[in-house]
């Protein structure tokens, strides 16, 4: 940085304190315990675990742990439904059930949003304005495909569903990931056994209650609760025809090994280390907003997060200065407060991991900057953090941190930006900021990743396919391409 004195900064919010703007939670209803949801009924469990609110560390409810027998019952129920009512139902009737689910999500949207925030720690602003609307939209979008599948697979006479789907989802977007898995599976005529993440099973259980109200035939969608062992049992079950997993690359590889040598079809949506590439001809202020959205949205618990910032060298100081300024206005705290930008870290375990990797970044000699703010005394929180002076070989430039931590690097030419962006085993998403369209689309074409956001970041839509290159997995979710792996074709 040069020595020109900086103008005095005045921050939005400097002159007054924010009042709290709490979203009420007294109207939400949930039970003290949920076992599993099999064949249209909630069933008891022998073993249990607690799910806590990461913002308060209070226990919300306890959930069952499914062993082999329970998983087997769920898969059998799904098989019966596939061979019975669901498989023989007219596609147009199937469509109406899925539309019905989408509509009912919308009716209960606020309750789902509040529960999602309580169970997972994400700001209510995000669960209310992003997660739940997208859940409803996803069911609404795929519902319409159910009786139009012959148009989705040109040249295939009579596309058939694959059968029973075993699905395992993560804790960062609990109900949205459920929707991404369940909606296309049902539209194609499959049945489902899904395992929610062990830190965020609550909204899946509320979704099960919704399915009962919707009158979906028994066994079409089943939920088994539990941790990794339950997931492993499910994906290894011999009567599961297709496995879909979203989660870490490490676990994805284990699942790929589990299904090796079997006829089970597999799609994986795994980790990422996305780059946000900012060229000197970009609209800088817009890029700053995109950088902030890219890494601090959902506390950085986003597989496609823009966790590496690649800035053209000539504008590095300006971008970092503006970014620090913008970060200082972020409000970290109670996820149920409508003003909150950055909520609670999902679990103590995840907080430990973020803390550890940030320690590694400091030990490796990178320059750290964290915003100066008070954090709640209870609950799991982490200050939005950026590292400058990072090189591609640093661990914080290679490993997925899955938290509000950004690593800043520089480049001089578009080719160097592409090389650095691609220098990772992952390939999920990247952002490009430039006002020059020809350059932007040239770079977009050279990036090894499944989603490229040009002059925007972290946009999602049910009509838009999402998924990875390389070790970020294979298969797509969203749009017509999202049907490919739920149908048989050749």
């Amino acid at each position, binding site marked *: 940085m040069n020595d020109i004195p900086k103008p005095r900064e005045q921050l939005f919010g400097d002159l007054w304190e924010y009042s709290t703007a709490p979203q009420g939670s007294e109207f939400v209803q949930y039970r003290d315990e949920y076992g599993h949801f099999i064949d249209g009924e909630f069933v008891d469990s022998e073993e249990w675990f607690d799910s806590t609110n990461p913002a308060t560390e209070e226990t919300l409810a306890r959930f069952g742990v499914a062993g082999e027998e329970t998983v087997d019952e769920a898969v059998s129920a799904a098989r019966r439904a596939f061979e019975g009512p669901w498989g023989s139902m007219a596609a147009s009737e199937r469509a109406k059930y899925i539309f019905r689910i989408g509509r009912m999500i919308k009716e209960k949207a606020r309750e789902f949003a509040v529960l999602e925030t309580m169970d997972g720690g994400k700001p209510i602003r995000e669960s209310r304005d992003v997660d739940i609307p997208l859940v409803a939209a996803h069911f609404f979008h795929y519902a319409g495909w159910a009786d139009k599948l012959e148009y989705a697979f040109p040249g295939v006479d009579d596309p058939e569903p694959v059968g029973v789907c075993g699905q395992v989802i993560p804790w960062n977007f609990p109900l949205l990931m459920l929707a991404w898995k369940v909606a296309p599976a049902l539209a194609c005529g499959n049945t489902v056994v899904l395992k929610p993440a062990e830190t965020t099973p609550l909204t899946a259980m509320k979704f099960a209650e919704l399915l009962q109200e919707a009158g979906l035939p028994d066994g079409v969608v089943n939920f088994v609760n539990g941790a990794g062992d339950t997931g492993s049992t499910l994906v290894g079950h011999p009567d599961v025809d297709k496995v879909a997993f979203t989660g870490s690359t490490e676990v994805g590889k284990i699942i790929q090994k589990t299904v090796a040598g079997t006829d089970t079809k597999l799609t994986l949506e795994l980790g990422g280390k996305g780059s946000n590439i900012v060229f000197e001809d970009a609209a800088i202020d817009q890029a700053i907003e995109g950088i902030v959205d890219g890494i601090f949205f959902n506390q950085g618990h986003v597989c496609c997060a823009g966790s590496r910032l690649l800035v053209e060298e000539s504008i590095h100081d300006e971008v970092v200065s503006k970014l620090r300024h913008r970060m200082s206005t972020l409000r970290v705290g109670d996820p149920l407060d409508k003003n909150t930008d950055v909520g609670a870290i999902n679990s103590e375990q995840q907080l430990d991991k973020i803390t550890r990797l940030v320690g590694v970044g400091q030990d490796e000699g990178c320059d750290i900057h964290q915003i100066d703010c008070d954090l709640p005394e209870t609950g799991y929180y982490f200050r939005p953090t950026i590292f400058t002076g990072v090189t591609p070989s640093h661990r914080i430039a290679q490993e997925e941190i899955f938290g509000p931590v950004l690593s800043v690097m520089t480049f001089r030419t578009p080719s160097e930006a592409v090389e650095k962006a691609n220098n990772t*085993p992952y390939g999920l998403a990247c952002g490009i900021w430039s006002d020059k369209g020809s350059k932007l689309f040239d770079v977009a074409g050279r990036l090894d990743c499944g989603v490229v956001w040009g002059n925007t970041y972290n946009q999602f*839509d049910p*009509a838009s396919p999402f998924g990875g290159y390389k070790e970020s997995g294979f298969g797509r979710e969203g749009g017509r*391409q999202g049907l490919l792996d739920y149908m048989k074709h050749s």
Partner: protein
Amino acid sequence: MASTSDRLSVYKTYKLYMDGGFPRTESGRHLKIQDDQGQFVANICHASRKDLRDAVVAAREALDGWSGRTAFNRGQILHRMAEMLEGRRADFIDMLTEQAGYDENDAVAEVNCAVDRLIWYAGWTDKFEQVFGSTNPVASKHFNFTLPEPTGVVTIFTPRNAPLLGFVSTVLPVILSGNTTIAVVDNPAPQVAMEFAEVLNNSDLPGGVINILTGVREELLVHAGGHKDIDGILSVGPDSEERETLGLEGADSVKRVEFLEGHDDWTSDEAQSPYRILPFVEFKTNWHPVGR
């Protein structure tokens, strides 16, 4: 082998096809090929792990150039392959009848179908993107579109039957999207694929796009599965052990591992499909705001 009067025929030395050239296997090993009567046909190369690794380097180097060609140009090159094969139909019919135990009708059918299939896939290069890609009507002010891109370097364990048509039917849908390949050939008449390499080499196909290794399939499985610079594997007609080996080894780099049962009759229409392009493409979705 057919011979006239007392003229001594010339044996042909078959080598590997790699990076647009015909090197011997670095291992110096050979396999003896006989016809269905037990008569000597040729000594072919018994490719090693090192040959596989060399072929991967060639395929990787060729990737940017090949995938960077226009789809139209790739189509022209595939069509050129068909032209070259058409001109050598008689050679391949002779090879199949004299060395691979085919009767005349079956040999003619296989060669004709191979030419026609090359033409069919040549036409797909600039169409599959329109058929399987999309513009997406997102509910926001964004232009959103999805395109298939090649996965990268793909190893193909080619069919154990139909030495010409099986090869063409499995390699073409993989390379037409811009992938580069290492085709492993282990069948009763592997010299047919090496003969076909000469067709490829005369077709403006850049070196390294299709590399061909003859040898023992089981020996190369584990090395291909575990090679981190191979992005995908197509295994045609695998047994259960092969499926497990490739699945386990491939998982360490989240490889795209695709199994194809194969066909008794590769001339069947079912042996060609644009859906055979899809296992080795990656869909990329682009977003851009629309506004003033």
